């Protein structure tokens, strides 16, 4: 059963950027792609737990700020060393100007 949670206003995230969203003791990363679609992943890099929201978004890639490990934030797929484990992703929808993520 879906568990939709309001993460932020849609304008809180600049195009081709990412912000951090903390909820219930967990941390997430909310992305706005160049094509204005929104995505969400777990917030910490699977390599050494740096906050991905401090990283760099390039097209559909998020680069970790600590060791430059890269993921495709649409699928969570790790793109090669030094990241080997994929990110968990979460469904996202827009509702009345808000970015909602499904934490079910």
């Amino acid at each position: 059963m879906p568990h939709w949670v309001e993460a932020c206003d849609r304008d809180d995230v600049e195009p081709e950027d990412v912000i951090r969203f903390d909820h219930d003791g967990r941390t997430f990363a909310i992305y706005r792609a160049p094509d204005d679609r929104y995505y969400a992943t777990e917030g910490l890099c699977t390599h050494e737990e740096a906050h991905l929201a401090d990283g760099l978004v390039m097209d559909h890639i998020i680069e970790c700020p600590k060791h430059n490990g890269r993921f495709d934030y649409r699928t969570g797929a790790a793109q090669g060393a030094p990241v080997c484990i994929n990110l968990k992703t979460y469904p996202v929808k827009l509702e009345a100007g808000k970015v909602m993520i499904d934490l079910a």
Partner: protein
Amino acid sequence: MNVAATMPRDYSLIGRDSRRAEELGLASAEWYKAPIARKRLKELMQRSDEAAIRDTILWIAAFLVTGGLAITFWPGWWSLPFFLAYGVLYGSSSDSRWHECGHGTAFRTRWMNDAVYQVACFMIMREPTVWRWSHARHHTDTIIVGRDPEIAVMRPTQIAKVILSFIAVPQVWAATRSILRHAMGRMTAEEETFIPDMERPKLFLTARIWLAIHLGVIALAIMTGSILPMLLVGPLPTMYGAWLHVMTGLTQHAGLAEDVLDHRLNSRTVYMNPVLRFLYWNMNYHIEHHMFPMVPYHALPKLHEELKPWMPKPYASCFAAYREIIPAILRQMRDPGWYVKRKLPDGLEPVDMMTRASIAAARG
């Protein structure tokens, strides 16, 4: 009390100081970062192929000119200056190329980073898989004893090793043993601490390819009855061209603090001339690089300007840095607990080992 002052340090990644680093909260810890605005940092982090393509075209052209003239004048004495220049390109400028492309920041396009990374790694005889992972650890645990596999000058200083490193004797010896070990499908216990299982087939394959290339160059030299192929490709140019990368590389951390969580205390930023900065791809801005490794080399001078209010005074030149480094590492031969203490701008507090240890103790 400085533990390093009372007992010899164990630089092994599986020894006493490795366990101590973990107990003190120094392993994979949170490091000081200057409070630069996210918006400005994001601007500086932007990637571009333009600068690195330009620099790589120049780099390849410099290889062709120096190598071509060295071959043209071979075996006369006039080939010597061209070999010296070629060697610096081969054995020294490759240091910054593997490094920047290993971070994936030099080019925006990934395959370009990967291609230059592989070539530069071969030139400097740093196996791509090993060094990608060892360098990740170097950034996680910079100059943390027992954690950082890339501490260039360990204490007490082994001065003969430092001197021989200028012609890459220890590096090439270690690399040759490592390539042979990996070609046979074996790893050291230390490597097992930082190279994941899934990377091992790639490590072994690369070692076998490198071994085949090196043997091929030796075979060519034997077949042609000339040492010329070996002066152009392989361990010899890595060695006769190493001096510049060792000279610039030692300015990064030598003589400074160990076991601190603040790159301002264990790294140096040194002003260098444009030629050196081209060969070194701006790694002279080393504190800035460690603090924000996502900023590409071509944006480091701008990052340096942004971070000045929080940084110690940069060194005016390599000469200025070595006026500090040489006495420091000589003193560390007999007094391994001693180190250079960097002065931060007035009112700024460093994050040192005891700060972190206090935090760890307070957390229980």
